[in-house]
């Protein structure tokens, strides 16, 4: 049996008195594309952010590639992880945000090579060479020296994907990557993500794109009010939902 890339056991998370995650159990296998669906406020983005420790969980256990997230277990005790340990683990997990979050003071290429040079200590020449390849892969070979403000939303999001890929991640997290885009720009980003899935990347995708979830997802997980309501094969869950809450949600969005 292989180690799951992501394993959540009874994960709970509260913001003050508001409990956002109420016990999530979930496993994502290597090479799997897992799409998280659900109404806004259901906790799917929070769960995604817990995976790379941008949010700290309050209860349960969360593992990435067999390693505990945010803590170190030693002699039956949990130790809070030091900052550089957290950073080192995050370096292998790519994340793509809804609002792109490109560094506006750097060019497209500058965005892509920043972390490989500063974190992975790659030589500049090496980082630039692989940066060229990555930007070519997302169809932006002619925009290397453009600043984010000079790019469309779809182009910015593709640079953001290239930036995450430059760290050679073993897992990619997508937080509603197309929600801030004009409808005609959604396709170009989804195409890049399709390509990634085809190349065998392990992906956890929070999305409202039902078509993408059905065609590209290996599993879909439907969340509502901080719990997993239903999960399984995308076609089955999306076309033939069993739980009334899934039915109600899909009835509204499809």
């Amino acid at each position, binding site marked *: 049996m292989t180690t799951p890339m992501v394993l959540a056991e009874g994960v709970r998370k509260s913001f003050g008195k508001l409990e956002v995650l109420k016990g999530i159990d979930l496993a994502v296998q290597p090479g799997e594309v897992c799409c998280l669906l659900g109404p806004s406020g259901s906790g799917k983005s929070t769960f995604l952010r817990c995976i790379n420790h941008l949010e700290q969980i309050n209860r349960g256990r969360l593992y990435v590639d067999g390693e505990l997230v945010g803590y170190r277990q030693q002699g039956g005790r949990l130790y809070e992880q030091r900052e550089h340990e957290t950073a080192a683990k*995050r370096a292998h997990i790519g994340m793509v945000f809804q609002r792109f979050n490109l560094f506006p003071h750097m060019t497209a290429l500058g965005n892509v090579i920043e972390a490989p040079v500063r974190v992975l200590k790659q030589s500049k020449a090496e980082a630039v060479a692989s940066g060229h390849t990555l930007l070519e892969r997302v169809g932006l070979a002619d925009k290397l020296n453009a600043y984010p*403000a000079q790019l469309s939303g779809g182009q910015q999001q593709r640079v953001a994907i290239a930036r995450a890929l430059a760290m050679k991640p073993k897992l990619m997290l997508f937080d509603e990557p197309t929600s801030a885009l004009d409808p005609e720009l959604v396709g170009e980003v989804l195409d890049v993500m399709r390509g990634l899935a085809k190349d065998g990347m392990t992906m956890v995708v929070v999305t409202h794109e039902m078509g993408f979830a059905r065609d590209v997802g290996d599993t879909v997980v439907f969340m509502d009010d901080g719990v997993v309501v239903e999960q399984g094969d995308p076609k089955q869950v999306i076309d033939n939902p069993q739980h009334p809450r899934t039915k109600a949600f899909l009835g509204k969005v499809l």
Partner: protein
Amino acid sequence: MTDGAAGTGVDPIVAIPVRHWGRWVGAVGVLALVALLVRAFVQADIHYGVTGDYLFSHVVLVGVWHTLEISVAAQLLGVGLGVVAAVMRQSKNPVMGGVGWFYVWFFRGTPLLLQLILWYNLAAIFPTLSIPGLWHADTNTTITPFLAALLGLGINEGAYMAEIVRAGIGSVDSGQTEASQALGMTQGLTLRRIVLPQAMRVIIPPTGNEFINMLKSSSLATAAQFTEVLRTVQTLAGQNLELIPMLFVAAIWYLVLTSVFSVGQYYLERRFARGAQRELPATPFQRVLRGIRPGRT
């Protein structure tokens, strides 16, 4: 069809522009006041020749140099302290945060002149300075007028800079920090490579302002017996009894310095505006060039 006055929209519009009579009246009135003011100064009992005689004299130029020297040094010290204090105030460590807060509270809350006098008279409180076991010295010989002025102006400036830097850091979207952390960058690296460069756009304009202020408030360093340009011309006036023309000498030099640095600030702001706008506007120099050589942009 087209009779000029009421065309169909194909012909260029020919219309009589609105006449702004009020502007004409206002301009004439203000010009009259300016003329009166000029006349008053021309007829006043001021020996302008003295201003000219001393403007480039060696002793005045040395004073100007000292003003520039102390202003640059104190501003640099202020920027450094400001960044440190701003970062301290953001720290999760309550001691760090408290000390940062106290620094700003004290040095922003007491007059600069008082602080300068205090630094100059440090020997009255601490006759000797020492780092136990390593170094010790007599306060009076260590704290020269220059050092007293530097500490007074720079530490005071740091308190103001701390607030400017804090506002700058606060202006950077939190998504930027998240993105760099998600890439595995540590807090220090994030601050240095991602947050501060973006905060610069917000920090630089008020810092330029602060520096221009510093050029002028450096004249208070006279309280620490530091000889900058204002003290120089006052000393000269004590000898030649031409106070007003000598004050003009200092005023002209202050204006020269502040004008030169305003231009420098313009180019610095342009440099840090990269990425904030799609295309940088032309500099005045580029606009002049374009006017001389049309067709080349």
